[in-house]
């Protein structure tokens, strides 16, 4: 029983941590550098 609980808790932790990392990586990859228009 304890082993099952540990397994589920670990799976939830890994899943949620991955979600946080995905959000962080995607936020960090968006450029907010102002656009400089090079033509007309």
């Amino acid at each position, binding site marked *: 029983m304890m082993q099952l609980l540990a*397994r589920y808790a670990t799976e939830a932790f890994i899943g949620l941590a991955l979600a946080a990392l995905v959000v962080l990586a995607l936020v960090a990859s968006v450029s907010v550098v102002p656009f400089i228009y090079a033509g007309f």
Partner: protein
Amino acid sequence: MIRTVKDVTAVLDRRAGGAGRSPLSLLRVGVWLVVGLFVAGFVVHAPRAPGSPQYQAHIKVPNVRDVTLDHNDPRGFMHVDQDPRYFRIAWIGASTLQNIAKHKHYTFVPADFRAAVPEIGGKPVRVDMYFVSGGRIQDMYNTVLAAIHGKPNLIVVDDNPLYAFNTLALQSWPSLNEASAPYELARPGSWPLLASFATPEDIALGLADRRLPALRERWSLAKQINDKLDNISPLKQPTQPTATTKPSALQQIQAESEALDFWLTYRPIDNPHDPVAKRQLALLHESQIDGGSVTDRIVAQLLGALAESRIPSYFYFSDVDPQALSNPEVNNALAGIENHMRQVAERHRAPTLTVQWQSLARLVPPVPFNDIVHIADDGPIVAYLARTICAQLARLNPTTTCSPSAGGSQ
């Protein structure tokens, strides 16, 4: 005692209850990942997407707004609500929407149209301006798809004939690929365009961020974080010179924030001192009008999407400098582009769609130009558009009241 990798695995298995050892366990991790992405959308709140304050400030007419977001923002455009109290017009165009008159009188054709036609069908007109400055034909198509999704009462597309079939300048707003990827996926004819322009990331995120706010709002979140980081950074943004006297060339270079600014000033791509006709002709000759080019597919998809939407739509070719048009070579090159547009348009006829394949230069009295493509007096153009668009709406529904107000147009 831990000696090998197997020993480490055994310890982890004991402590983690064997998580990740079976496909079912990996599936549960995946489910938690998705749950986490949903929860993140509730935990982290992004401020509402900002519009374009630099352009909105120039719009003095009520009920006209620029809905285009930052050039890097993957959302592309502001969320457009479908308010039935208004007659909603989605007006799409690149920099040719601008009216850059002398004495700093800077307006937009859609705003002046709104002043000229304040009511249609008994409802006040609201114009959502999809202003994609520097936009090329693929950007126009992506924008049209976004506008159709907003379900307006009327769509107007301003396209520059210089770039409609120019195969050397196809796209300058790649951020729109993600925003329009789901709509392009729904149109099999657009799949070659998706394969050509969108990355796998654009398509995956375009599909995912429709349901996941944490991904959809990531540009605003990144901006929030960057603003905070900038405050603690020892590096500061250079301030623009505020002296009343004209800054020296060296001071101007010092005030530039990007190396690109320097090269655009001192190594311009084309010679701005060449006559307008020569520069115009060089651009027109970049068009491929013998059929089978990627621009043909984009234009066909664009017109097809407008026709299938059943939303009243008016597509027109913007004005061309009459000074350049007086050159027979420019005139012939433009006529070739116009005829090719007519041929493509004939394959996408619909009662709701009007394609004005001739440039406005052939239909309205000559207007002064500020530079190679931007008009400096949109009065005759607004008057013409008000007349023809109202006529189209009346043809579709004879009970629609739409008439230019006296004195509204300049």
